[in-house]
């Protein structure tokens, strides 16, 4: 199993947390922010990011705004009210997951 598969399930809480911290973001910005924060360890591919963003948008977790940037149009994502609740839930789940792994991998620290 490569590390990309390990991170796959964590993408949703990561994106929700980022959007909660930064207000509104666009696709490329999200990939760069994650890359920067993890010092290049986690590189979100376009193939993983956009389907997830579109699913969250369809579920009402995210809302979008289109803006003209020079010669092109940019799509900004931000959390809806439901999205803010969803973010807290997802981050808590991720925290629990991390603690469970800690119990298995390093029982002394846990």
């Amino acid at each position, binding site marked *: 199993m490569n590390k990309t598969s390990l991170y796959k399930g964590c993408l949703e809480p990561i994106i929700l947390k980022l959007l909660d911290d930064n207000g509104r973001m*666009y*696709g*490329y910005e999200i990939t760069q922010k994650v890359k920067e924060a993890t010092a290049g360890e986690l590189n979100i*591919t*376009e*193939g993983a990011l*956009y*389907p997830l963003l*579109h*699913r969250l948008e*369809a579920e009402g977790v995210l809302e979008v705004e*289109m803006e003209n*940037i*020079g*010669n*092109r*149009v*940019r*799509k900004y994502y931000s959390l809806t009210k439901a999205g803010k609740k969803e973010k807290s839930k997802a981050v808590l789940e991720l925290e629990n997951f991390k603690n469970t792994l800690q119990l298995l991998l390093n029982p002394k620290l846990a």
Partner: protein
Amino acid sequence: MLTPEQIQKIDWFFEDKGMEFYDLRTELVDHVSEAIENQMSAHYHISFEQAFKEETRKFTRKDLALQLAEAHEKYSPLKEWRYFTLKRIGILLLIFLLLVLPVILVNKELLIYMEILYLLIGTGWYLSYLLQFKRKYKNPRKKVSVYSPERLSGYLFPIIIPGFLFLNILRQHTIPPVDQTIIFIVFIFWNYK
């Protein structure tokens, strides 16, 4: 900042890969454009062509096909009706009334001049539309004919429909029936969607 031609090249890349949904393509175009801009500003020796090759290589056919399949799954024709917001309906009705009221109020002898004026406005409007189209497809990669049957009918509609509408008013001197109003609104929706 990339030039409109460079943005168009990126757009064509995704169009070629079958990305038919405008919003999806727009998002990917912005993504690749920004990635290319960052590459070009970080490495001055890299040309647009080199950065374009490198960035578009990341989009595998499989990834794009999956995104497209997902978009197809979520697509609902009912979403098209979101175009008709209250604001738009209001504006359309206002335009319609502004066009029709003078025809009803004006002296019968002057009606023919009103019709000529409207036809001139319609023609001018479509000439500007034609120019806009020509400017957009300055160097078409595929031959895009502005005189294709579909486009031609698009240009003729604003002349034919108001023409019929005002001929009807001239003959009957009554407010046009509801069906003509609907045709008018559908025609605007068809051209601007």
